[in-house]
Structure formats: structure tokens, C-alpha cells
């Protein structure tokens, strides 16, 4: 069976993907500004729990800092 050569692949792709209009239809500044103003995603509760647990462990077992430091 005849296969596409490189030139035919290029032509087939050009005909399958007609030219797209590269002109931007509207100003996007306000959309960008809205996105910048949007509140950042809240930190999930389990992250706070993990932070609290880690802080608690280090307060009650301060020597564990050395173990953590060793593994870092």
C-alpha cells in the first residue's frame, strides 16, 4: 500500500488543519486582572493538621530536629 511521503504528510496536515485566525478579538486585560484579584486557593485542612502535628512533635521531642536534619 502506498504510504505518505514527507511532502504529502505536510499537505495532508495543512488541509486537515485549516488556517486559524491569529487576530485577538478583544482586550484580555480585565480578564487577567480578575484572575490576579481572585483569592488564592485555600490551604486544605490536612496541610494545617500536618503542620500542627510536626510542630507538636518538635516541641515535645526537640531532639528529633537532628534526625530530620540528618535526612535532609
Amino acid at each position, binding site marked *: 500500500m502506498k504510504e*505518505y511521503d514527507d511532502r504529502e*504528510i*505536510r499537505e495532508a496536515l495543512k*488541509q486537515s*488543519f485549516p488556517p486559524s485566525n491569529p487576530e485577538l478579538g478583544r*482586550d*484580555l486585560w480585565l480578564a487577567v486582572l480578575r484572575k490576579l484579584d481572585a483569592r488564592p486557593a485555600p490551604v486544605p485542612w490536612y496541610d494545617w493538621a500536618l503542620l500542627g502535628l510536626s510542630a507538636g512533635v518538635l516541641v515535645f521531642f526537640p531532639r528529633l530536629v537532628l534526625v530530620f536534619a540528618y535526612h535532609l
Partner: protein
Amino acid sequence: MDLRQRFARGEIDAFETLVRQFQGNIYAWIVRIVRDPSIAEDLTVETLWRVYRARHHFRPDGNFGAWARRIATNLAIDYLRRKRPEETLLAEPAGMSQPDRVLQRETRQKIQLAFRRLPAKLQVPAMLALVEERSYEEIADALGTSVGAVKHRVFRAVRLLRERLTKLGVRPE
């Protein structure tokens, strides 16, 4: 103070000026990759948002347009990775519904689908080089890679596409 320096310091007025200056270029680049104006607008907004968030990494003596384009290209690649190929099929443009002498509608869709099933890292350089006829240097710059790597990816894309079209029984007219 230079506009880019003011942007790097987080001045929103400077950023607004840069957005107005570069949004058209960024959109045009993205739409060439994703081929969907609405998706391209969304990705342009996302790009500009990321640009602002990453302003501390921008060197004020650097090329703002090239830097933003690289961020845009990475976002477009991520979009193509997430999207199912079937969802990216293009609607037939007006006036193209009649049987086409060169390629029938069905064949075009098969080719689109086979192309969209290629890995995103191959699709993007292949689309830009083969369909949009952008230079290898420009594509390499946008991808943050070498010209040799771009040529290799385009070569692999063509080889894979040829194999897949042969399997699908899609042959040149």
C-alpha cells in the same frame, strides 16, 4: 525606570502596558497550536497570570516576548496532554462541507485525530513547523530546546503519523 524593570518590581501599571503590548502575539502563538479561539483566549489569560506571578524570575534585560511565549507554549502542551484527542476535532469551516477534491471530510478528521493522538511534545513542534511553517529556531526558542531537538521531534511526529495513517488505511490521493 524601564518598563520591564518596573514590571519585575511588581508595578501593575507596567504589567498592564506589557499585557496590551504582547497579548496579541501570545494569543496568535497559542491559537496556532490549539486551533481553537476560545481555548486560546483562556490560555492567553492563564499565560499572562503566570507571567505576573513569575515576575521575580524575569531578568529585566531579557526578552519579555520570548519569555512569555515560552510560558504560553508550556501551557499549550499541558492543555493538549490533558485533552482527549476527540475533543479537539475541528468543526468543518463554512464552505468546506461540499466534497473536497483533495481530501474528503472524513479523511481530514482521521488525519486530525491521528495527529492529536501523537504525544503533545511531538504535536507542538510538528504543528508549528509543518502547518504553520515557523522556523526551527523560533520553535526551539519557544520550547526552550535546541534546533536539533526540534528537528528530531518533527521527524518522529511525521514517522509516527505515517505509520498510524497507514494502519487506518488512510492513503494519499
